[in-house]
């Protein structure tokens, strides 16, 4: 690493750390994002919460409570284990088990294969449709329960080998990585732009470029901004970790902790994706900053780039199911790739080889963006704006 680039990085890091605005943004922006996304998550949950009975869906029901007519469709003679086996083998898509004590427990069970988080899956509710259709002409106690829908359906997501798919446990680390990247975008974007245009806007370029090459100046700045981004993220994560540690014996915290699936390969791939995505974002911001002369110009140019990057978030529901063509395009288009890959990883709709290809796409794009940014900065370093500089006041 070049000595001068490190001197630039040191200067930029120290001056930012001294600014109260840096720490205010560190604490306030995540809070604001959290509130906005909580609200939008709650509203998106109400988008489609009705079950739809599709003719092509293969369904099986074991009815130990004898609510259905024995001749009713979907009813099988096999027991619960037999039904689960049918799901594992792919003979049926959805399997429902109604236990003999259903009238007391008011609980039925639902089994289906799902590797992903699949939070908007309403297939469990199909049982309610079938039960209400079946009971409409009768009035015994069980039928009342069935008609009023006053019972629970336990959702069991299993893998093809029959084990619990632990989709939530698997999604926790990808969710953390995705949230971290989102904070990174929100916290660092403006700073990346300002730091690149600062020398041009303040007319320092000519003087500083007789002491350091444009390449090392910009590399130093990129290093500094990445480090500052990590400092801000650490400032958020460390208190959260302390809080989790302090509350580790609380029932909910203990349950979440026990669910977290530690898969070293997955962790490494997630960290690689985050790193490549952060560098790509830095490269794009620096590229935009290098092309213009003022922070104001930079802000208007960076907006389309950021919109492209966060675009997949507006189509989140598409990422929850099997990827269609649009999702595939988002996944491998350099600007939208980071968030698309993170979303698909969260929802379990991407295979490891596909995920690796995505990481390669993001890494290559990051290298290209950084190289372009450095070249553009070198070319435009003294491309001052025609706006009168504010630096010198009349003495």
């Amino acid at each position: 690493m070049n000595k001068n680039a490190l001197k630039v990085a040191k200067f930029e890091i120290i001056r930012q750390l001294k600014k109260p605005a840096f720490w205010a943004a560190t604490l306030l922006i995540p809070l604001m994002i959290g509130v906005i996304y909580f609200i939008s998550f709650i509203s998106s949950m109400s988008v489609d919460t009705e079950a739809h009975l599709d003719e092509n869906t293969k369904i099986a029901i074991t009815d130990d409570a004898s609510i259905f007519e024995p001749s009713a469709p979907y009813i099988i003679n096999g027991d619960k284990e037999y039904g689960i086996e049918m799901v594992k083998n792919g003979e049926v898509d959805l399997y429902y088990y109604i236990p003999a004590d259903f009238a007391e427990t008011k609980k039925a069970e639902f089994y289906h294969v799902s590797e992903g988080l699949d939070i908007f899956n309403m297939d469990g509710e199909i049982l309610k449709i079938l039960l209400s259709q079946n009971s409409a002409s009768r009035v015994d106690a069980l039928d009342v329960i069935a008609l009023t829908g006053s019972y629970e359906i336990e959702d069991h997501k299993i893998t093809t080998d029959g084990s619990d798919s632990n989709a939530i446990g698997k999604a926790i680390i990808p969710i953390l990585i995705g949230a971290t990247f989102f904070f990174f975008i929100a916290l660092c974007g403006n700073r990346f732009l300002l730091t690149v245009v600062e020398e041009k806007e303040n007319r320092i370029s000519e003087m500083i470029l007789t002491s350091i090459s444009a390449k090392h100046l910009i590399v130093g700045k990129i290093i500094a901004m990445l480090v500052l981004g990590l400092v801000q993220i650490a400032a958020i994560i460390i208190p959260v970790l302390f809080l989790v540690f302090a509350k580790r014996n609380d029932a909910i915290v203990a349950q979440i902790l026990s669910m977290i699936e530690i898969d070293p390969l997955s962790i490494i791939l997630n960290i690689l994706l985050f790193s490549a995505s952060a560098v790509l974002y830095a490269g794009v911001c620096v590229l935009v900053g290098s092309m213009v002369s003022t922070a104001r110009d930079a802000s208007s140019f960076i907006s389309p780039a950021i919109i492209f990057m966060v675009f997949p978030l507006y189509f989140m529901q598409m990422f929850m199911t099997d990827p269609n063509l649009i999702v595939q395009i988002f996944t491998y288009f350099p600007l939208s790739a980071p968030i698309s890959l993170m979303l698909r990883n969260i929802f379990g709709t991407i295979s490891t080889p596909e995920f690796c290809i995505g990481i390669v796409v993001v890494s290559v794009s990051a290298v290209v963006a950084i190289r372009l940014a450095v070249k553009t900065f070198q070319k435009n370093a003294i491309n001052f704006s025609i706006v009168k500089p504010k630096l010198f006041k009349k003495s």
Partner: protein
Amino acid sequence: MAFNGKTVIKDLSFTVAKGEIFGLLGANGSGKTTTIRALLGLYKPTGGELLIDGKKFNPEDSKITVGYLPEERGLYRKENVIDTMMYFGELKGLENPREWSEKFLARVGLADKITEKVEKLSGGQQQKIQLGITIMNEPKLLILDEPTKGFDPMNRRLLMEIIEELHKKGTSIIMITHYMDEVERLCDRALLLKDGTARAYGTIEEIKKEFNNKSLDQIFVDIYGESYE
């Protein structure tokens, strides 16, 4: 040297000897700053070569130290004075940038402004800080583009003292100025540029002789008069 197909510097050739003060003169837009920017690699010349000590300028080559006070003045507005000077000192490879900066600030009457933010200083005070940054590594080549612009007579005198000190130490100085009295008093040789070409080049005496011993002021008016009419 051309921009968007328009030639701004053509057939220009000159040398600056070691230890001399060289005046680069010309009306606004004659190509002085462009020449310097090309010399420092900030612009890529479309033809020809600009060399310092026989080499193309590389800001990180410690053997060719250059100090450049550009016409476009600026500093990190939100930073304080000492941090700004120390940053440049570190980039220029000074062993103890704080000590040097404190001494310089005391000399130019800004000792009490060390922790002041740059934006709080007057234009003249900021200019002194820029001058300090420019000369802090005792450059072998010092390029001053309109160095006295915006200075009051006291500060102008202080600047001249500093330039003379560096000259005595063997620094080569290229000075771009519109003040002909400064050129006559300080410069060993000069070049007058008009429309990107040299209209006069040599020692001050040689230039005067070529123009019938007129003053530099009058020579300037003679050369550029037509374009202003």
